[in-house]
Every structure is written in structure tokens, then in C-alpha cells.
């Protein structure tokens, strides 16, 4: 099973840290679908959006609210990269 990217970007590290601290898991595959696996409930989704907005200074708009953008560690990191080229504030 593929687990963590051995050389993750700072954004991916921050996202992974946030998710692991929010759910009762010791390890998480960066491609694991948080919604299909039942890891993400509505409270978690609110917290994830808030974390992304505050940490990366991104405003998540209505058009961004697609599960494809937030379904995993990798998807969320890719969304952050697309929106502002990364950079933790």
C-alpha cells in the first residue's frame, strides 16, 4: 500500500498534519478518499475549509466546493498549489 510521499511539499505536510490531528488515525495514505472512507463528516469538512483558508490565505468560493478539490491530502495540496502557488502564511 502506498502511504506518505517521502518528499512532500510544505503545503502537503501542513495539510497532512492537520488531517491526522483532526481524525483518530496514526497514518493516512495521501490519496485516501476522506469522504468515501467515512473519515470526513460535516464538522471535519468545515474545519478543513477553515484551515485551508487561514493557513494559505485562500478564499474558497462556491465554485471551488467540489469534492475533487478536497477528497484527499494530495487533492487538497494540489488545489492550494493551483490557487496561489502554495506558500504558508
Amino acid at each position, binding site marked *: 500500500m502506498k502511504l506518505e510521499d517521502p518528499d512532500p511539499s510544505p503545503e502537503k505536510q501542513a495539510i497532512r498534519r492537520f488531517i491526522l490531528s483532526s481524525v*483518530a488515525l496514526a497514518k493516512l495514505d495521501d490519496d485516501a478518499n476522506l469522504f468515501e472512507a*467515512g473519515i470526513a463528516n460535516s464538522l471535519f*469538512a*468545515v474545519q478543513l475549509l477553515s484551515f485551508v483558508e487561514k493557513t494559505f490565505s485562500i478564499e474558497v468560493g*462556491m465554485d471551488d466546493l467540489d*469534492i475533487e478539490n478536497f477528497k484527499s491530502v494530495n487533492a487538497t495540496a494540489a488545489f492550494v498549489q493551483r490557487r496561489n502557488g502554495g506558500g504558508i502564511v
Partner: protein
Amino acid sequence: MTLQRIGVVGAGNIGTGVVTDVLLHGMSAVVVDVSRDHLERAQAAVLDNIRCAPLFSKALPRITRESAAERMLLTTDLRQLAECDFVVENVTEDWKIKKDLYERLDALVPAGVRFGVNTSCISITQIASVTKRPGEVIGVHFMNPVHLMPTVEVIRAFHTSDETVQALQTLLGALQKEAIVVEDLPGFVSNRISHLFMNEAAFVLQDRVASADKIDLIFKKCFGHRMGPLETADLIGLDTVMRSLDVLYESFRDSKYRCCPLLRTLVHAGHLGRKTGKGFHVYRDA
């Protein structure tokens, strides 16, 4: 029949979900609870639900939080329900609270406005008996999270009229939900059976047959359930599960519904499940 303005009494977890669903589907909601604090927490939860809904379902309509807020009236005054087309009640699972509320609702809300009773176990016929409109009272057991669950257990009480069943089906149709209509005895179908699972799982844990993790894994991996019985109890709230078991025990006087002592101890210790961060399991996101 057109249903545009829906009254929602009790804005806890399920009530908040009902309001979310009503707003997502273009109707307006009059939300009643006992304090401004409760109402403000409910409003924040509804707006969060509405924002995140597209992440959980592509089928749900997309609306802005501003549009939702405009169609939500928050009040502590039951008289504001007078203009509603249908009222869904979701207050605490406690007969005394429900009895007092329905007596007041019946006095304040014009005849013809139907009441949907959202209860885990209490007989709908018993609730209808404290009103002068028993034909217009029906059980509506939404599942959690309300706006994401496509099916609702509907309970036809002893006096519920066909018109009331039709009115509720119209409302549920507008919410894109299917109704499964059953007859009225405490616990109905869903909770009469599910609470036996949860209670016996607590006994199995108490008797040290297996850990909480293993008990839930058996249900998930062997039976293909999405959640195990102890996780489900934690999600519902152990206090609510205990109260429902007590209602079932009192209603049937059958010892199979006696609440597991471990479950009752956890409730008394304040470990109520997800909402307090600890129940049968520990939750870090609470």
C-alpha cells in the same frame, strides 16, 4: 398542496439538519428554540452545512449562505409558527417536554397546520392524544445527517389521516426524499431494532468479550455495515440512546430493553459520545 414555509421546533442536531434541508430546497424556515444562544449556534451550523453540502452530494442544490440566511427566521416565540404550512418538531426525547410543547403548539398554531413529530421512540399516538388535532399529527423520523440521507421513516399514528400522510409525502418529495410508512408502536421499526443492537454491544463490551474497536469491526467487516453499533451510539449521543432504551423498556415492560449498566455509567460520567469527545471511543476532533 404547496409547502413554502416550514416550522422547525428544536434546533439541535436533527433540527439543524431539517432546517438545512428545507433551505437547500428553496423553502423558508421558522426556527424555534428555547434561547437566543441555541438559535445562534443552530444558525451557524446550518450555514456551515449549506456551505459544505456540495462536498458531500452533487445532487443537492447549491445556494449561497446569504440566500439561506434570508429565508431563516430565528425565534423563541412559538406564535411565529402560526403562518407555517407544516411544523416539524425535534425537541429532546422526553415525554414531559413533548407533552408540554404539544399542548402549547395546539393552542397557538391554527387548526389545519400539521405536526410532524421527530422522535426516536415515543409513541406518536400518545403525543397526538394531547392535541385536539390527532388526525393532523404524524411521525417523521429523519436520519442523521438529515440533508444527506435520502430516506425517512414515517409513522402513521392511530388517528393520522390520509391527508396528513399525503401532506408529509409532499414535503418529503420537495426534499427529494423517499418515505417508508410504518405503523405506530414505540421505537417503530428503526429504533426498536437498532437500540437492541447498540445495547447488546454495550453488554458485550461490559462482559469483556471484545474491545469496542473489535465489536464495531465485526459489524463493518463481517456484516458490511457502514458503522458499528458502538460508533453509532456515540454519534447519536449516549444520553439519547439511554433515554430511548428507557422509553422502550417502560413502553413494552420487556426486560430485553433494560439499559446496559455500562452505558448508563458512561452517561452519568459525562462521556456522551462524539459531542463530548469520549463515549465508547475517543474522538480527537470534538
